[in-house]
Structure formats: C-alpha cells, structure tokens
C-alpha cells in the first residue's frame, strides 16, 4: 500500500466528503446533498438489515433451531415471514397475524408499563408537602399543565384562568427545552467542524 494513502487526509476523505456534501444543503438542495442523502438512507437500511439478521434471525431463530433443537422458534419465525405476505395480494391479509401479535403484546406491556411505571410514580413524586416554594411550584405546574391539556370542557372562566397559568409554565418548559436542543445541536456542529479542521485538514488544534 502506498505511503500517501495512510495520511489522515486520504484516510478521512470519504467521511469529510459526505460531511461537506450534507453541509452543502445550507446553500440549497443540490446533487451532492441528494447523493449523501441516498447513501445515508442505503447505509441505514443495510445497517438494520445486517443487525437484525445477526442478532435476531441468526442468534434467536437459526442457532436455537439447529444447535439446540428448539422447534418452538419456528412459530415466531413463520409469523415473521408472514410479514412479507403483503407483497403477494392473494395471501396479503395474513400479514395481519404477526402485526396483531406484535401490537397486542406491545399494548399489554404498555398498559402495565404506563400505569405502573409512569403514572403512579409520577403522581407519587408530585404529592409533596407544601413547605417550600419549590414544592408549591411543582404541584401547581403539574396540575395546571394537566388542566391545560384537558379539552373536554371549553377553557373559559376559572378553568380558562387555570389553563392560562398552565400556558405560562408550558412556555417556560418549551423555552428551556428549545434552548437545550439548540445547545445540543450546536455542540454536534462544533464536533463536525473540529473533525474537518483538526482531524481531516490539520489546520487547527
């Protein structure tokens, strides 16, 4: 292998090329960005294909079936294959069976998870003693937010007044999250610019 090839400039050239191609969208939609977009979509689809093939089909279906003789894995295997029945109109309806299994079991898990793991603990943590401004603000914030999202009655009179307090809390939270998201995106941007200037071109330290 020639020596120049091991130079970071050439080693990182594909990464830098696609980074710049994506940044080119800031000017306008262009062929380089479209190419990067399609490469990214293809790699992502291939990534999930390879990952699922190895971690699910090979490890959870093929190996238990061939090495341990677990014939029961044929049931989810066949159900999984039925997912592809949608490509054949005559048996297309059978794709509903695996879908119903996944959605039904997910609904069962979600039902317990949401009530036991989310609603009860969150309500429990909100039932605070009214001995500090912090606790009072948390209780008022939770209640007014819940009332703001209660749309079964028109927000007029007392309900409207409480809902408007809720809007105030919600605006603070949305503003804070907006600021937080901006900071996260900017730190990613700094990382990419550092990659281009420090790792790839070596013009900055």
């Amino acid at each position, binding site marked *: 292998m020639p020596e120049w090839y091991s130079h970071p400039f050439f080693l990182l050239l594909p990464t830098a090329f696609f980074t710049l191609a994506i940044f080119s969208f800031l000017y306008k939609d262009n062929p380089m960005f479209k190419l990067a977009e399609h490469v990214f979509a293809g790699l992502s689809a291939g990534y999930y294909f390879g990952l699922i093939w190895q971690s699910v089909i090979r490890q959870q279906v093929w190996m238990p079936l061939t090495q341990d003789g677990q014939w029961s894995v044929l049931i989810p295997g066949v159900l999984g294959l039925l997912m592809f029945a949608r490509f054949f109109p005559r048996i297309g309806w059978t794709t509903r069976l695996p879908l119903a299994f996944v959605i039904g079991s997910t609904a069962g898990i979600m039902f317990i998870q949401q*009530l036991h793991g989310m609603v009860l603990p969150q309500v429990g943590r909100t039932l605070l003693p009214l001995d500090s401004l912090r606790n009072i603000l948390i209780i008022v914030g939770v209640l007014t937010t819940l009332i703001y999202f209660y749309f079964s009655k028109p927000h007029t009179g007392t309900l409207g007044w409480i809902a408007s307090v809720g809007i105030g809390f919600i605006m603070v939270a949305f503003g804070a999250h907006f600021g937080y998201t901006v900071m996260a995106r900017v730190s990613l941007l700094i990382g990419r610019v550092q990659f281009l200037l420090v790792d790839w071109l070596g013009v900055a330290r």
Partner: protein
Amino acid sequence: MKSRLPVLVAFISGALMILAFFGRGTVVDAVSDRALTWQTIVGGFSLLLGAVSIARVHWKKVATKHEDRLYSLCLLICFIVMGGSGVINGIGSGTLFDTLFQRIQAPMMSTMFSVLAFFIASAAYRAFRARSVSSAILLVAAVLVMLGRIPMGQYIYHGLPSWADWIMTVPSMAVQRGILIGAALGAASMSLRIILGIERTYLGRG
C-alpha cells in the same frame, strides 16, 4: 376470519402480558416470557420488512428509469454492501460493516443533526420575537438556559448557571411530569382499546 382472527390474536397476546404482571412465577409468567422472545423475533422481521421495502421502492425507480434513478442506484449499492457485509462477515468490530458504520454512517448522522442547528436558529429568529407574554416567557427561558450552559454565561453573571438549573428542575420538570402523566394515561387507554378490539386501525382496510 380475516379480521376476527387478528383481533383474537391481539386480545390473547395483550391479555397474557397483563396477566403475567399479576402472576409472577406462575405458568402465565413463563408463557409471557416466551411470548416476549417471540415478539422480539417478529418485531425484528418487521424491521427487515422496512429495509426490504426501501430497497424495493428504489429498485422500481431504477427499473422504470425514473429521473432520480442514479441516486436510487447509489442507495441500493450502499444497502447491498452494508447489509451483505453484515450477513456474510458479521457485525463485530473490525468488520466492513463496523468500519462503514464508524467511518461513514455515524459521522453522516451527526452531521445531519448538526445541520439542524442552522434551521433551529432561523426558527428561533421567527419564534423569539416577543410579541406576546407567552412568547416573551419562551424567549427568556430559552436565553437563560442557553447562556447558563456555556462558559460565557458565567462571565456575564455568575448566578446564570444556577438559574438555568432551577428552570430545568422546577417549572420545566413540573410541565414534563404533567405531560408524561397525560400521555401515559392516553397510552394506557389506547392499549386497552387495542386489546379489547375497539381500536382496529392497525389492521388496515379490507
């Protein structure tokens, strides 16, 4: 048969998961454990279906000589190389699959997200004009959190980081909690509707 059988399957699998919670260590629990493994497998196949569907759509574009066929061809090549290397050589570190992920896919992903910083900035310009009390509150909260998270904020006023922390841990957390409780109640009621066969939109038409 075409719609009753899937509804029955959804009911049995959903009810089994709920019963398993109340019957820890019993046969129901063991059966639900097995059903969970099966769910992972069937769910995995659905992800495969998604990947194959993308390839199928772009293959059609190439076959029908669509104006974007060259981009679709690139997508298909990337899909075959990445997916094929994962299937043939495995996904461990040092494989082609891993190299493509580390060198191309992961940097592209973070670049895609970093581009959003510019779009968020332009959205902020439009949203942050304090034309009403609500947007003024939004503006103040966002500015305080942003300044409180950078070293410059501390130079402007040493108390800014603690103000930002207070916003995140008191009003913001209270709202998050309210939204979480509401969303969780909604998700639980939707789950119940699915298990009882009231909600059938996932079956599609026909």
